Structures are given as C-alpha cells and as structure tokens.
C-alpha cells in the first residue's frame, strides 16, 4: 500500500517534471511541444466548457480562445503556479464572460422548440443506449430538464465552482486559486449551489 502511494507520488513528480520540460520547450518555440500541451488538457477544457455552457458552438469558441491565449502568452508563464491553474484561470474567465453575457441577453436555453415538440440540443451528443426504455427515458428527460433549470438558477460563479468541484473533481483550494478567491469563499459558493439545487430538484431525487 505504502509502495503504491510512493509509486503514485513518484509518477506525479515525474509527470510534473515532464510537463515543465514541455512548457519550456513551447516557450522555446517548439510546435510539437505545444501540440503535446494542448492534447494533455484539451479534452477536459472542452468538457468543462460544454457542461458549463451546454452549447457546442460556445464550447468550441471557448476552446479556440483559451488555447490561442495560451499560445500567445505562454512566454509570460513564470511557473509561479501550476500550468493547470494558469490554463484554468484563462478558461474559467472566458466561460464566466460567456455566462454573464448570456445572463444579460437572458438564458439561451439548450432546449429549443421544434415542430415535433421541445428538443434538447445536447441530446444529439448522447448516443442512445441499446437498452433505452421509454419509461425510464421519460423520467430521465424530466430529471434532465429539472437539472437544467437548477443549474440555470445558479449565479455564474456558483455554477463554475460547482462544475469544477463536482464534474472536474478539483479541490476547493485549487478552485479558489483558479478563480482568484479564498478556499472559504469557494466553500460557501459550493454550499449555496448545492442548496439551490436541492430546492429545485426536491421531490424528483
């Protein structure tokens, strides 16, 4: 057990050293290294954007803008924090801008009305399972709609903290670092977000 833990710690240290070397190579103009850096993080960045914004178009914009900013500004990265924190600061700022803009022009719902009734644009992302049961699917749709409403009721910051903690598994301390706030403030945000969701989802769970 102890050996496993030591092995994991060594692997983390080795991967951190490896990442430092990659970042230095990118700063030295190595395009191959830039590609490696993008590939190490781009899936989780896209996942964060798509879950937060629930729009493939917006998620695509966030992806482009974030990695272009990394590309243009990597020479300013001084290893004062982890690259993950630095990248996520960029990504969360862009996402928060999107969420705030959306609040101004009212929530752009993922669910749109069509001639065949309301359709969630994100449904096309989830391949229907072979054992899909209409009854369960109906319940899932109802739950999905309610979760959507619950998430829409959160402030952009609450939504961000919840997303980073629940879906991305980040610790509240790291979330505080990314969002430029304290761990305590992130904790309060998470608590408020959870309470709001419990209120909206109430009887359905």
């Amino acid at each position, binding site marked *: 057990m102890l050996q496993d833990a030591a092995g994991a710690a060594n692997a983390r240290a080795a991967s951190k050293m490896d990442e430092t070397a990659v970042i230095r190579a990118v700063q030295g*103009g190595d395009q191959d290294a830039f590609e490696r850096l993008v590939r190490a993080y781009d899936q989780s960045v896209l996942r964060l954007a798509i879950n937060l914004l629930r729009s493939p178009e917006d998620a*695509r914009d966030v*992806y482009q803008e974030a990695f*272009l900013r990394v590309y243009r500004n990597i020479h300013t990265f001084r290893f004062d924090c982890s690259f993950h924190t630095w990248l996520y600061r960029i990504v969360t700022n862009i996402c928060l801008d999107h969420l705030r803009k959306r609040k101004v022009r009212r929530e752009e719902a993922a669910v749109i009305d069509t001639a065949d009734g309301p359709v969630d644009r994100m449904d096309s992302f989830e391949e229907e399972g072979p054992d899909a049961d209409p009854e369960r699917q109906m319940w*899932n749709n109802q739950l*999905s709609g309610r979760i959507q409403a619950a998430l829409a009721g959160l402030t952009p910051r609450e939504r961000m903290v919840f997303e980073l903690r629940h*879906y991305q598994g980040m610790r509240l301390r790291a979330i505080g670092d990314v969002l430029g706030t304290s761990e305590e403030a992130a904790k309060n945000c998470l608590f408020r977000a959870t309470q709001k969701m419990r209120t909206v*989802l109430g009887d359905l769970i």
Partner: protein
Amino acid sequence: MTCDEVTRAIPLYHYGELASEVEEGVEDHVESCASCRAELAYQKALAAALDRHDLAPPPELLTECRHELVRAVYREETPAARRNASDPWGLFRDAFRSLWHPGIRFGQPIGAMALVALGFFAARFTGSFPGATLGGLAPDAIVSSIRSVQPDNTGRVQISLDETRRRVVSGRLEDQDIRRLLLAAAREQDNPGVRVESVQLLTDQSSSAETRSVLLEAVMRDPNPGVRLKALQGLKSFSTDPEVHRTLTQVLLKDQNAGVRMQVIDLLIAHQDAATAGVLQALIGKEDNSYVRMRCQNALRDMNASVGTF
C-alpha cells in the same frame, strides 16, 4: 454536533472538503440520527443524478476544435508571410517569426524549424494543409500521415506523405452519381451523422430495389438506433413486400432498442394478418419493456387476436 450543523456540513462532507475532526463529528452524528442519515442519502442520490447529467464532448467536436485551432494558429501569421508562397520555406519562416513573440528564443536552424512546423500543421493534428503550395502539395489536400522525412546536406528535405483530396459535389437527388454516393454514405462506418443524413434522403427513393436493400441492411445492422429508425421510415410503404416483412419480423424479435421495436410494430400492424399476430404474440412472451408490451396487446386486440398463445 447538532442536526442543524450536520445538515449544513453534509454537502462539504460529501465532497471530502471538511477538516478531519468535523468529518468525524458528522459521521458520529449520522450514525445515531435517522433524519441526518436520510439527508446524507439524499445528497448522495443528488450527486448520482447530477453525474448522469455530465456531458462528454463527442470525439468529432474535439477533432473539429483541434483542426480549427491549427487554422487559427496559422492565421496568426502576417499577410506578408502568406503572400510569400513562391519560397516554400519562406512560408514557414515568416509564419514562425510572427507566431512567436520577440522575447522567445528563436535560435534553431531554419530548416529544422520548418520541419517542426510541417509536422505540427500537416501531420500531428491531421488537419487540412492551409493554402500551401509546397512541393506540389494540392491546396485542398488533406495529409493523413507523414511516412518519412529525409533531410539532405543542402538544406532541402524529402518528405513522403499520404495525401487525400476533399471534393465537393452537388446535384439533384435523382442524379445517378448523387444517388450512388448517398448509397455509399449510408454505409459509412465511421460517421453515424453521415449515415443518418443519407438514409433520411434515401427514404424518398425507396421505390428503387437497390435503395430498399440499403435501407433493409441499415435496419438490420446499423449500430445507431437513430439510423435504424430513419431507415424504417423509408420502408413504411413497403411493409407488405415479403422481404421487407420478413426483415421487420426479425428486427422486432432481436432489436435491443425499444423505440425501434415500437416503430416496427406500427409498420407491421398496418397490414394485419395471422403471421403478424403470431409474431406479436411471440414478442409479448419475451418483451420486458412495458410500453412495447402494451403496444403489442393493443395491436392484438385491434386484430381480434388473443393476447397469449395457447
């Protein structure tokens, strides 16, 4: 700890964000308090429901984003560099000068840098090669992989690559060539989006035996239920055709998707006969979906057939 304190601590307890002494306090309290235990169970159920709401970005979107990033990085170059296409290496030299900020080290030999650029733009991201006129590479070429790179001592390099070219063709649905392409697209293994669009377009042409055969194959074998449902729509007017009828019967008894089975029932009962009643009776015996079972029972009642087999 009081119930009120524990209730407030439960979300953070769930996420493992409490100090260890507070965590122990919650655990001790929950062990002896049914109401707080229920609160904790609710928190777990809430988290599980939210987990199911998590969206994984589809691989196509990730690929598109990567391609767009390559193009966006390329666009960062100056227009002057883009015009400098007569010198193939100049394209990359100038692109690189503008891509990187002046403070960044730029000491590598130009040839080596150009090679890296080529690798980045053309091979690793497998994106389209943006507007290049390099060494006879077609402007609309898609480089799928670089096989070998051999520099020589004059500063030139020989690159062996696999090149495919994207073409756009357009025409009316009745055009022979367009139809041929649609029939091929309906079997395109790697892209369910292409298959669903093609099958949708082919549904209006199911009077052709060739089209019908592709639709039947899709209904029987396509792994995507969306494609199978579209193909069923195309077969709607042919449910009495013996081959179509036989295929629909097989699909009804073996398809794993309840939505597909429901649609097949609708097609089969449009022409009621004893054979259809027999199939529905056989299905009821093994069907575990309550909606499909109910649909079968109603259909059998409409056909004045018994719901069970005797």
